[in-house]
């Protein structure tokens, strides 16, 4: 089988979704057993679009992203099934060398903790320039020039003087900007941002999100934003995928989800946010803790914590019901949830 990558992106004529994750299953084989971290995730993103992936810690958001990038630790990780199509080509079937070329050029990624994600022992400029040197075969000097340009672009003050500084010499926000500079160096078509601002202050977070939005406007890239900050999602996302226990439990446009969530988990999440009008009262909290991946609850993974739970939930895995258009919910009782009355 000779699957060739679609030719240069400049023609921009690819018809389908830019990046599609289709029924992805990922497991971890550990001493304690097989942990099913991702159980059939399906989502897609188009050029210029922002997909926000929401979900509790441990719900498989990062593992999905890592699988897309091909940076999953294997072993213990194992891709059990599923496809990841980039411009229609299944990345999982590509030979390693081809796959490598997609990284950085086709799809790029930024990580949550920029301090640990940047190599502590190389100057930041070097790390950015590496992209040009390895992918584009540029000379050191040219690559450095490009690195300075990029640092300017992500608004590092005095970029020229700071190219040779090391990550620890930058503040958290600046480090994240350097990560971004590195990720957008080769104008990727899709950028995956895995919790890019969780470690940052609100004021800096605002700067970063602003920057990402601007870059997206400029180059029309697809953005997958992984976060559990509902505020940030509300600010920037076009559509949302909510994950729970390794599955997508709700797919919706940002407005639909915030207005009327169709899955009890998404609903609980939205209700947990502290609000002024609720001051002094107890906050709503989803009871219990995330499912144990080694021992997933039967039926719907959320059922032990779900106020809408009925027998059916314990026995049957709910499919992703289509509610309307692209909207979907993996709850047997999505109608009741939409209506807002728990049983």
């Amino acid at each position, binding site marked *: 089988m000779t699957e060739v990558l679609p030719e240069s992106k400049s023609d921009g004529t690819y018809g389908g979704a830019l990046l599609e994750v289709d029924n992805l299953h990922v497991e971890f084989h550990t*001493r*304690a057993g097989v942990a099913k971290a991702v159980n059939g995730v399906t989502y897609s993103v188009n050029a210029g679009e922002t997909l926000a992936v929401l979900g509790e810690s441990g719900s498989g958001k990062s593992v999905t992203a890592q699988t897309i990038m091909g940076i999953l630790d294997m072993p213990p990780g194992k891709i059990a099934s599923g496809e990841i199509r980039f411009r229609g080509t299944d990345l999982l079937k590509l030979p390693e060398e081809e796959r490598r070329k997609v990284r950085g050029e086709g799809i790029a990624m930024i990580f949550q903790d920029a301090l640990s994600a940047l190599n502590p022992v190389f100057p930041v400029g070097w790390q950015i320039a590496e992209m040009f040197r390895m992918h584009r075969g540029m000379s050191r000097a040219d690559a450095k020039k490009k690195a300075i340009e990029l640092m300017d672009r992500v608004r590092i003050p005095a970029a020229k003087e700071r190219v040779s500084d090391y990550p620890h010499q930058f503040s958290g926000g600046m480090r994240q900007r350097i990560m971004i500079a590195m990720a957008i160096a080769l104008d990727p078509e899709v950028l995956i941002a895995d919790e890019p601002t969780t470690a940052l202050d609100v004021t800096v977070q605002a700067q970063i999100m602003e920057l990402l939005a601007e870059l997206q406007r400029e180059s029309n890239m697809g953005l997958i934003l992984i976060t559990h900050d509902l505020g940030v999602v509300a600010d920037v996302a076009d559509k949302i995928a909510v994950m729970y226990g390794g599955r997508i439990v709700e797919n919706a446009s940002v407005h639909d989800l915030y207005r009327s969530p169709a899955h009890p988990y998404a609903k609980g999440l939205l209700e947990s946010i502290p609000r002024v009008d609720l001051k002094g009262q*107890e906050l709503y*909290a989803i*009871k*219990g*803790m995330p499912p*144990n991946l*080694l*021992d997933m609850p039967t039926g719907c993974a959320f059922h*032990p914590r779900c106020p809408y739970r009925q027998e059916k939930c314990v026995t049957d895995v709910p499919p992703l019901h289509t509610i309307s258009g692209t909207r979907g919910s993996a709850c047997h009782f999505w109608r009741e949830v939409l209506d807002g009355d728990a049983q």
Partner: protein
Amino acid sequence: MSEPTATQDLVQGVPEPSAAAPASSGKPRSLWHDTWDILKHRKIFWISFVLLIVFLVMAAFPSLFTSKNPEYATLARSMEPPSSDAWFGFDLQGRDVFARTIYGARTSIIVGVLATVGTVLLGGVVGVIAAYRGRWLDSLLSRIGEIFLGVPYVLGAIIILGSVAPVQANPGKTLIMTVVIIVLAVLGWPVLARIARSAVIQAKHQDYVQAARALGAGPFRIIFKHLLPNSLAPILVYATITIGSYIGAEATLSLLGIGLRTPVISWGIAIADHTRYIRTGAHAMLFPAAFLSLCVLTFVMLGEAVRDALDPKLR
């Protein structure tokens, strides 16, 4: 004033115990207890453990393994190769190599283990104090360590052996052994001190140490409950390899004529005595050498297994 339901409600929010660890609220458990629980299930641990026991029994009761007298020399049979009545053959003096290998375990293991224990104690104490107190004491202790590391090893050994147990005094077996152990430990502790120091410095900056201080914990508690258990892994790894290198170092000292001496039976002496005869009778050296290597391997494997088990992430 208070709403009794507030906490009550939360208790309901308590998640089910996850299946990973069965809930048991029996006796209070400790780090060591749990480490043992994990070790119990490791194959590599049992292999090395059984080997260790064999070696230890060999060291304690060599006569269980052989009825031959390791000292008895039939010079006429010098360097005879292995045969059915002498499994490992005879050495240069016509002594039974098997018996000597068995009897050699005691000295070699005692020297290796005690010297390592000495190194760990000395180096550990200095390293921990240096790291914990920091400032000038750290500098001072580090510099003292450098002095010891700087003195050439053999020279140091000669000096210490020569002045503590001069041959003129015709020192006895135990004295020589003690001095050899002391020499190894005294010249070896600074490396361990460095390792312990950096491990403790790393642990020292962790939040849980601050938390303990906030509770009012004193230095002893912080060192023994918090710093040490969390700095143990690198020390353990180094120490187990060190046992091996010390057993070897003992052999080198014997070869130079400044280590253990004849009435003492050890692998090191056997190797040192017979290296030169390797072309005519390799057996006299290879068997003790093989035991030595196996013993080293045992300690290293054991150390590795214990270190793994001490790692809470694996629980």
